[in-house]
Every structure is written in structure tokens, then in C-alpha cells.
């Protein structure tokens, strides 16, 4: 199995990709928790999503199994659709409240 992994990829160890993905994911989590602007939060969510994508691609390449990369394409397509819906919602929120600060949006409760 090792033989099928191209030389170019083997020059960077798998751990590096794992570290990168973890760092990206952590940045995303912290961003979601600390920022108040809905658009920034949204970007941080995308960051987490892409951290997972990186991880999937890396493992896929190292194990010479294309399933992981195909899976990433699906995630990207679904994420694109989700962005369209999410941004639409944020635009509507801004039109109605003249703000995208999530702390002010506390009306969705009992």
C-alpha cells in the first residue's frame, strides 16, 4: 500500500496535516465562541468545515483510497448550498434589525 503513495506527498509527514487541521478547527471553535458578528461566526464555521476537509483529503491520499476525496467534493457542494441559505438568513436579519450582532438577537425564546 505504501508503494502506491506518490513521492511528492510522502515528503510531508501525515502528522503535519493533522496539526494543521487541528489548529484550523480550534481557531474556528474559538471564533464561534468569542465573536458576536454573525458573519464572522459564519466564516468560523466554514473554517471548521474546511479543517475537516483537509484531514479527510490527507488521510485519503496517504491511504491511497480515493473515497475520502470524493467525500470532500460532496461536503463542498453541500457547504456551498448551506452558505447560500445562511447568508440569505443573515441578510434578512440585517434588514429587519439593522444589526448582525448575535447577542442582540435573543427574541427566539419562550
Amino acid at each position: 500500500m505504501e508503494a502506491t503513495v506518490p513521492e511528492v506527498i510522502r515528503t510531508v509527514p501525515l502528522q503535519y496535516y493533522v496539526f494543521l487541521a487541528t489548529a484550523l478547527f480550534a481557531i474556528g471553535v474559538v471564533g464561534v465562541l468569542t465573536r458576536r458578528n454573525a458573519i464572522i461566526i459564519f466564516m468560523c464555521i466554514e473554517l471548521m468545515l474546511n479543517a475537516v476537509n483537509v484531514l479527510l483529503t490527507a488521510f485519503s491520499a496517504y491511504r491511497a483510497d480515493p473515497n475520502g476525496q470524493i467525500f470532500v467534493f460532496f461536503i463542498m457542494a453541500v457547504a456551498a448550498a448551506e452558505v447560500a441559505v445562511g447568508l440569505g438568513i443573515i441578510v434578512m436579519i440585517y434588514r429587519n434589525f439593522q444589526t448582525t450582532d448575535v447577542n442582540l438577537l435573543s427574541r427566539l425564546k419562550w
Partner: protein
Amino acid sequence: MEIVLPGTNAPYPTFLYVLIPLLPFVGFLLNGLLNKRLSATAAGLLGSATVLGSFVISLVLFFNFKYQYTVELFDWITVGSLQIPFSYQIDQLSLVMLLLVTGVGFLIHVYSIGYMAHDENVGKFFSFLNLFIFSMLVLVLGSNFVILFIGWEGVGLCSYLLIGFWNTNTDYNNAAKKAFIINRIGDLGFLLGIFLIYLTFNSVQYGEVFQKASLSQFGPYTAGICTAITLLLFVGAMGKSAQLPLYTWLPDAMAGPTPVSALIHAATMVTAGVYMVLRANVLFTLAPQTLEVVGIIGLATALFAATIGLAQNDIKKVLAYSTVSQLGYMFLALGVMGYSSSLFHVLTHAFFKALMFLGGGSVIHAMSNEQDLRRMGGLRKYLPVTFFTFLIGCLAISGIPPFAGFFSKDEILSHVYEHSKLMWAVGLFTSFLTAFYMFRLLFLAFFGEFRGTEEQKHHLHESPASMTLPLIVLAILAAVGGFMGAPMLLGKHYLADYLAPLFTYSRRLNPAAFALEPDHGTELMLIGLSVAAGVLGIVLAYVQYVVRAQRPVADDAPRPAPENLVYHKYYIDELYDALFVRPTMALSRGLYKFVENSVLNPLTNGFGRAVQGGGFLLRYVQTGAVETYLILMVVGIVLILGLNYGRL
């Protein structure tokens, strides 16, 4: 052992067979959905046309009939070894019943166009009538006991709907409920019978069950199990065909519009019990004890109902009791294994009883909904067609030759004579009573002076053609219908010969019972006696109600004890009320008070309150602040991951 079913190759496309019950069903849907959008005449024509269509198809099948076969429509229920296909049985019995149901049904539909013209729910009425015909056709067409049961319940439902058709009247609603509930008692027996059939024969398909039964491969316990099965089936027949002790619903069922009484409670539904016994004749032949019970109950019902009929003053009640009594004759015939005679009487009875009910309806129509015989009289002059046709009906039921009832009743009585002289004597006496009370009705309604109000007298009129035409057709049938079974006159018993293949197995099992034929002299003597009984009844009624012009007294007038007993129908309704209805009501009231109110209600309400309270508390978790949600979510994920993998 290989089971050979009767031929399964139907000579016509399946679609044709499906159409027979489907046409009335389409009529039911159209009339029901378009209820008030159709005019009264259009609704009536639509309803009648669909039944006419079924009648025409039945005629085609009847005249091209060569051998028995089943028509497979689809696999209906398949569970383990239980296989119930949805299929039709086409044989002599189902064809005769098809013609009867659609033919007489069609005439009654046509009659209803005139009778119900002034009602505001004509569409509803015709849709129920069509649904009834549909159920009845399913009942006679089905090729196994389960389909029979579907039709059986279907006609029960329609009977409920039609008896309570004028549902603004509480009494009528109660009558409808009574019919439904009493029929349920019988249905329970029938259902248990079907279960037992399946357990014993591992099938519910007619062909298979009867063949297995006739081969007697079950050894010595066949007779016992057959007795159990047939007794249970007979309980079902008792309910549907109004035999003692489950007959009380039928007289009350007269609450429905008169065409309903004619269709359901005279010509078709009540004969379903007879049909079922005929269908299962092999099983009944194997169970002589059951046959004895059937015969005795039939005879008792015939006599009992006839005596009640003597004292009734409501024109429809008299007819109702005479129906119960005639049904008793049919079961008497079944009990002495006069199977084809029983079906013969079903046919002739359908003709003359439908005729008399419709004639009675015509009288009620003319009298502005008056049903009391004490207010009628002298109607002969005003309703000539009704009078003449009604007279033919009365002659037929009284067994006066050459009218239809004579042939069938005489055949039954001669079978009974071979079986038991005592039962024959009672049957003959009942026949005398029948003639007496039918002509009492005729003389009270059509002879003498008019006893109603001036307004009613002013309003008297002969019914429209849509009502008199069916009367005339039925009168012709009641007059000549008997010749399908008149071996002495025509040299051949057409009906019995036609039906003979149905009883092949029974004949093989008990050849002796089928071989019994009274010799010529005895037969002539029997005919003479039964005609004499009928004539005597008529003459007595004539003397009593025309020559002496005696009139029934008012309801609360004092009567001698025996007459009082009969007048109050032997207090059977009161007895049932005290024995079953009141205790049930008391039990329900007790349950309501102590179980429902103090146990069940607090329990269910408590559950509701607990859930409500819990929800009220949980509301506070939902703050609406997005940040809190996010932190809780992250903490949750970390916890889940930590608990899952932290232990490694």
C-alpha cells in the same frame, strides 16, 4: 390427497364479473358524493340504472351457464398456511341469488323513485340502497367464508343506515341500533364458526372445505366438530334471518322507509341466513343434531310470529311478523333437508313479500303516512291497482293455487310430513294462521267504510306509475313464479333439477334423506289439506272482518288475557329489556361512576398535568441567547468525546 376444485376457467373476461358488484358501488359513490347536486329523479334513475346493469350481466351469466367455476381476482390474505384469495364462486346458487337480488332490487329502486320523491335526502337514500345491493352481491358472489362475512357485515351496516334513515326521530334511531346490536350477537357466532372451519379444514374456500368434509377424512370426530361448526353458523343465521330468539329487531326495523323494508327485511338481507346454510349444506348434512335444532327453531319461529301477527294493527308490523314467520318456514325446510324447497320458498317469498311491502307502502303513501289499520278501510275503490296486486300477494302467501306460495309451501310441508307428522301438523296450523292474518289485513284496509280523517280521504290517490309498475311486475311473478317448481303440472321440477348439482356431496352422504318422496295419493292428500287450511283462514277472516265487520279496538281497551298476551307480543321485548338491556345499562352506569370517574380520569388527567408541568419548568432553559447555546453545544461535544475516548 389432491384437492380438485371446480373448474377455474371462467368463460368471460374477469372484468365482467367485477362489474356486477362494482356498478352499484359506483352508483353509491356518485349518489353519495353528488348528494344534493343531483335532482331527485336523476338520483333515482342513476341508482336504478346501476342495479339494472348488474341484473343484465347476471342474466347473461345465467343463460350461458354450463359448469361451476370460480373467478380469481387477486390474492387477498396470505399468512403462513392461511390463504384467502379474493375470488367469486359462480354456480347455480349464486346465480339464482344474483338474479333475485338484482331483479327484485331493481324493481324496488324504481318504486323508490316515486315513493321517496318528496323526501329531501333522496341522494342519500339511493346511495345507501346501492351500497346495500353491493354488499349483498359481494355476499352471494364470494367463494369463501371470509368474503361471505364481508358482505354479511356490509348488509348489516346498510340495514342500520337505512332503518335509521329518518334520523331526526329518536325511536327510529333506537330501532336501527337494536337491529345492529342484535345482529352483532349472531355475527359473533358466525365468526367463531369460520374460525372453527379454518382450524378443522385448514381452509375457508368453499370448494376445498366441502370436499374435505364430504370425504370424511377426519374419522369419528367429524360429526362432533361439524355439529359445533354448524351450530355456530346457525347462530349467525338466526341473527340475520330473524329466528327465535334473535328476531326482535325485524319488527322494529319497520321504522325505515317502506322500500327499505321490502328490499332488506323481506326480499334479500334476511334470506342471507338461508343462503349461508344452503352454501354450507354439506356441513349441515354431516350434523343431523344441528339440522334437528334448525328445524325446531324454524317451526317455533313460524308459529310464534304468526300468532303475534294475528293481533297487530300496524300494517307494516303485520307484514314484518309474517316475514319472520315465513323465514321460519325456510329454516324448517332446511332442517328436514329440503334444501331446494327452501331456496324455492326464498324466491317465491321474495316475490310476494316485496309485492306486499310495496303495496303497503303505496297504501301508506296514499294515506299521508298513516300506518294504522284502524284508520283505513274501503281503499279498494281509491287504489284499484294496489288492491288487486295486494290481493295476489295475499293469495300467494296463503298458499292458494296456482299462486307462487302454494307450490313452495306445499313442497316444504310434504318434506316435513316425511320427516315428522307432528311438525307437519304445526306447520299446517301456521299456514292457516298465515292466511287468516293476511286476509284480516286485506279486509281491514281495503273493504268496508273509510275510517280515516276527512283530510286523509280528500288526499287519497292511486300511486304514480313508477310505483304501480313494479307492483304489477311483482304481482305477475307472485302469480306465476311457482311454476318453476310444479312437477305435477309440468312433469318436471325445473328449479330442483337446476339446483341438484349443489347438493351432490350431501346426497352422497345421506342418500336416504333425498330419496324420500311421498307417494302420489299422500301428496294429493297433503295438497288438499294445506289448501283447505288456507281457504279456512280466508273464510274465517271474511266472516270476522267483512260479514260481522269487526274492528280492532283501541290500544288501551281491556282484552281477555290470551289476546292481551299476543297483542303485547308475549312481552318478549319487555323480557329482553329486563334481562339484558337494563343490567347492561346499570353495569355501564356503575363503571362510569366508579371506574371511569374515580380511577381512569384522574390517571389520564394526571399524566397530562405532569407533562404540562415538566414543560413549564424546561422552558427556562431556552434563553434565546445564541452564545449560551453555542457554549453549551461545544461543552456537550467535548463531554461526549471525552467520555467516549478519554478512558482509553
